[in-house]
C-alpha cells in the first residue's frame, strides 16, 4: 500500500471511529428530558406538524407568543415539516422516541396512535380551562369540537380511544376570479347550479375567440379533480344509495358497492352509474387540458396567473388566493345539478350536505413527552375558542371548534350542513388494495379523452373489473382477519390483566368490535375467492 493511500485509509478509519463514538454516545445517553431544558430554567415544549399552508405557521407563532407570555417558564418550539416528507419524518421520530411533545397525526394508523400517543378520553370529559369567560366556558373539552370528536374516535375501532384533537375542518369550494367572471359572463353572479357552471365553458370559448385569450373555465389538477368528481358524481347515485343501502342506513360503502357489482346487481350499465360517468366526462371538459397530469401547485399557479376563471380547491387554499392573488376571489359551494337539469337531474335528490367537513390539523401528545401535562395544556390552549378564532382569522381556514365563525371575509367557507344524503362514488376509491380504483384511473382516458365516451369506457373497464374487485375484496377480508387476530390477542391480554383492573365495559366493547369485524369478513368471504 502506498503512503498516500495508507494515510487516506487511516483518515477514513479515524473518521468512522469518531462518528461511531459520537453516535453511540448520542444513542446511549439520549434522555427523554425530565426537567427544565432549553434556555435557562424554562421548560421547552416542541410541536411538530405538516401545516405549512399560508397563515398556519403565523397562527402557531402568535398562539405560542401568547402562551409564553402567560407562562414565562415555558418555551414552545414549532417544527413545521413539509407535507412531502411528513410521513417518513413522523414515523422515524415516533419510532426513534424523538417525536415532539405535541405531534401531528396525519397518516398514522391505529397501532401507531395507540403505541405513541397519550389516550385523551378521560381528559376530554373535563372543561377546557382556557375557555373560561367565553361562549364554551364549562363545556366538556370533547363537546367543544364540532362533532364531539366522533370522527377521531372512529379512526380507532379496536381500542375505541381518542388520541388527539383537531383544530380545523376541510371542505371543497369553487373559488372564482370576480373580474374575469364579469368579463367572461357579463355578470357578477357566480354559477349556483351545475347547468350554470356548464354554461361557463361556452362563455369562456366565446370570450377567448373574441379576445384571443386562452382562458380555461376551471384550473384543474389530478388530485383536486378527484375531490370534485367525488363530490359531484355522487349526485347521480343519491337515490340509488337509499334504495340499495344494505342496512337501510342511507349509506352504501365501497365494499357493499363492490359486493353488488360482483353479484351482478349493479354495474356501469346501470343508468345512474352511466349518468355519473357522463357527468365526469362533461366536468372534465371544463378543466385545464391535461389536468389529470397536473399537481396542486400547477392549478393554483394557473388560477393566480389569471389563466382560469375559477378553481375548485380546498378551503385550506383560500389564504393563498388572498395573499398571492392580484384580484378579488369569490367563493361558492360546488354547483350541484338541479333536479330539473335535463341532462343530469333525473337521479338527483337535492344538493348534498357536506357534514361537518373532514378533520384537519390533528394533534396529540406523545407518551414519552417529558412534560405531558404542559403539552396537554398547550393543546387545550390551541383548541380554545379565543385562539381558534385567531387561527381562523390568520389562516383563513374553517375552525373545528364549535361556535367559531368562518373568517370574516369568507363566510362561504362554512360547511354546508343542510342538504340531502350524499350518494356514493363510482370509482371504488379507498376500497381494498386499490386495484379497482387503479383500473378506473388507467381507463379514464377512454372516458374523458377527445375520442372517448361512456360506451368506450364501460367496454374497456368491464373486461377487468370483476377480477380487480375480487382482489380488492380479498385484501379487504385479509385486513379484517388481521384486525380480528389483533382483537383476539387484545381480549386475552385484557382477561389476564393483573388485578382485574380492566373496565368490564371495555371488555364488552372489545367483544363487540371483534364480532363486527368478524361478521364483515365472513360476509365478504365468498366474493374474495376466485
Amino acid at each position: 500500500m502506498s503512503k498516500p493511500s495508507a494515510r487516506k485509509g487511516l483518515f477514513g478509519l479515524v473518521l468512522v471511529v469518531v462518528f461511531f463514538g459520537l453516535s453511540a454516545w448520542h444513542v446511549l445517553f439520549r434522555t427523554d428530558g425530565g426537567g427544565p431544558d432549553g434556555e435557562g430554567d424554562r421548560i421547552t415544549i416542541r410541536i411538530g406538524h405538516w401545516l405549512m399552508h399560508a397563515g398556519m405557521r403565523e397562527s402557531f407563532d402568535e398562539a405560542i407568543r401568547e402562551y409564553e407570555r402567560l407562562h414565562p417558564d415555558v418555551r414552545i418550539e414549532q417544527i413545521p415539516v413539509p407535507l412531502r416528507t411528513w410521513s417518513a419524518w413522523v414515523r422515524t421520530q415516533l419510532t426513534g422516541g424523538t417525536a415532539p411533545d405535541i405531534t401531528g397525526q396525519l397518516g398514522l394508523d391505529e397501532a401507531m396512535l395507540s403505541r405513541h400517543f397519550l389516550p385523551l378520553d378521560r381528559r376530554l370529559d373535563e372543561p377546557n380551562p382556557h375557555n373560561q369567560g367565553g361562549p364554551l366556558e364549562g363545556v366538556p373539552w370533547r363537546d367543544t369540537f364540532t362533532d364531539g370528536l366522533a370522527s377521531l374516535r372512529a379512526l380507532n375501532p379496536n381500542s375505541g380511544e381518542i388520541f388527539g384533537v383537531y383544530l380545523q375542518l376541510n371542505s371543497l369550494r369553487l373559488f372564482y376570479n370576480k373580474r374575469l367572471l364579469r368579463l367572461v359572463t357579463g355578470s357578477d353572479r357566480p354559477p349556483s347550479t351545475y347547468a350554470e357552471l356548464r354554461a361557463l365553458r361556452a362563455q369562456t370559448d366565446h370570450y377567448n375567440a373574441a379576445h384571443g385569450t386562452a382562458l380555461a373555465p376551471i384550473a384543474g389538477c389530478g388530485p383536486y379533480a378527484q375531490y370534485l368528481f367525488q363530490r359531484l358524481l355522487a349526485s347521480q347515485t343519491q337515490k340509488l344509495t337509499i334504495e340499495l343501502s344494505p342496512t337501510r342506513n342511507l349509506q352504501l360503502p365501497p365494499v357493499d358497492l363492490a359486493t353488488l357489482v360482483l353479484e351482478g346487481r349493479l354495474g356501469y350499465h346501470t343508468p345512474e352509474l352511466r349518468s355519473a360517468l357522463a357527468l365526469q366526462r362533461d366536468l372534465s371538459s371544463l378543466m385545464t387540458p391535461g389536468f389529470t397530469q397536473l399537481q396542486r401547485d400547477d392549478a393554483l399557479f394557473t388560477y393566480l396567473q389569471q389563466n382560469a376563471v375559477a378553481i375548485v380547491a380546498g378551503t385550506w387554499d383560500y389564504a393563498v388566493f388572498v395573499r398571492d392573488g392580484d384580484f378579488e376571489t369569490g367563493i361558492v359551494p360546488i354547483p350541484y345539478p338541479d333536479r330539473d337539469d335535463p341532462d343530469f337531474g333525473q337521479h338527483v335528490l337535492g344538493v348534498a350536505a357536506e357534514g361537518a367537513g373532514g378533520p384537519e390539523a390533528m394533534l396529540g401528545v406523545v407518551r414519552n413527552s417529558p412534560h405531558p401535562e404542559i403539552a396537554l395544556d398547550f393543546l387545550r390552549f390551541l383548541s380554545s375558542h379565543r385562539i381558534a378564532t385567531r387561527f381562523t382569522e390568520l389562516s383563513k381556514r374553517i375552525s373545528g371548534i364549535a361556535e367559531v365563525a368562518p373568517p370574516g371575509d369568507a363566510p362561504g367557507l362554512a360547511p354546508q350542513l343542510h342538504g340531502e344524503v350524499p350518494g356514493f362514488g363510482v370509482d371504488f376509491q379507498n376500497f381494498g388494495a386499490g386495484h379497482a380504483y387503479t383500473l378506473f384511473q388507467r381507463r379514464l382516458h377512454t372516458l374523458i379523452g377527445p375520442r372517448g365516451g361512456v360506451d368506450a369506457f364501460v367496454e374497456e373497464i368491464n373486461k377487468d373489473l370483476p377480477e380487480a374487485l375480487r382482489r380488492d375484496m380479498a385484501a379487504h377480508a385479509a385486513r379484517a382477519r388481521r384486525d380480528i387476530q389483533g382483537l383476539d390477542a387484545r381480549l386475552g391480554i385484557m382477561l389476564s390483566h393483573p388485578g382485574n383492573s380492566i373496565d368490564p365495559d371495555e371488555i364488552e366493547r372489545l367483544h363487540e368490535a371483534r364480532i363486527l369485524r368478524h361478521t364483515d369478513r365472513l360476509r365478504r368471504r365468498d366474493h374474495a375467492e376466485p
Partner: protein
Amino acid sequence: MPPTLVVRPRTLVAFALACACPLASAAGDVPVDPWEGALRFEFGPAVKELARLHDRSPDDPRVALGLASALLGVQPRTQANILEARSLLERVVATPPADSTFTLAARLLLGRIAEDHLIPSRPDEAKELYEALLRDHAGHPLADQAAVHLALLAAYPPADVPRPSSAELHARIDELRATVRTPEVLRELHALQGTLLIAENNLAAALPHLRAARAVGYRQPNRESEADLSIANIARELGERSVALEHYRAFLAARPRDARGTTVRRYVKELESADASNPGPDRP
C-alpha cells in the same frame, strides 16, 4: 511469511453497524408492564417479558394466558407462534378450576385460533370447541360468546359447506338464543338475525330483532345511532310511524351534524304531518 491482518475501512464500517444495532436496541429497552405494553400494540416486548415471567412461574394460568395472547398479536404472525399459543392455552385449560375466567378465556381463544389464526383455518374444529364451551358453561359471558361464533359459522359457512335454508338458519339461531343469558350476546344474535332478514327482504321479521338488539345498547362508536337509522327507515317503510319517529329522533339527537341529517329531518316532518292528518293504528 506470517499472515497479516488487514483492516479495511469498509470492514470497520460493517463492524460499527453491527455494534450499533444492539446499542440502539439497548437504548430503546425501557421496561414496561407487559400487559400495558400489549394493550398499546407493543406485542414484541410483551412476549419477551411474559416469556420470562412464564419461565419463572410455569403454572400461573394468568401469565400463560397473557403470553399466549401476546403471541397471537406479535408481528410477524407465524404459525410457530400460533402453535405455541395454542399449546399454552391447552395447558391453561387443563389447570383447575374449570370455570375460572382464565380457563374459559383459553377455551374461547382455542376456538378462535382454529377458526381465524391457523392457516388453513379449521372451522369444524372451531365449531366443536365452541359447542363444547357453550354446553359446559352456558350463561357465563365468555362461554356465551361462543354462541355468536356458532351463529356466524351457520350464517356464513365456508364455500364447501352447503348453506342452510333460511328457516333452518333462523331456527338454529333461535336455539342458540335460548341457550345464552348474557344480554350483549343476545343483542349480537338479534342483530345478526335482523341483518340476515333484511338481506332476505323480510323487513317485517327483521324489525323486532333489530329493536331487541338496540334495546340492549351498543358500545362501539356510532353503532347505536346507525342502528337507530336502520330501524327508523325500516319502520317507515313498514308504515310503523311511531317507531320510525322515535328512532329518527334518537339518531338526530346523537348525530346533529351528520350529512344525512337533512334527509332524516325531512322524513320526520313527513311522518309528523302524516300523523296529524291520518292517525294510524300505531299512533300513541
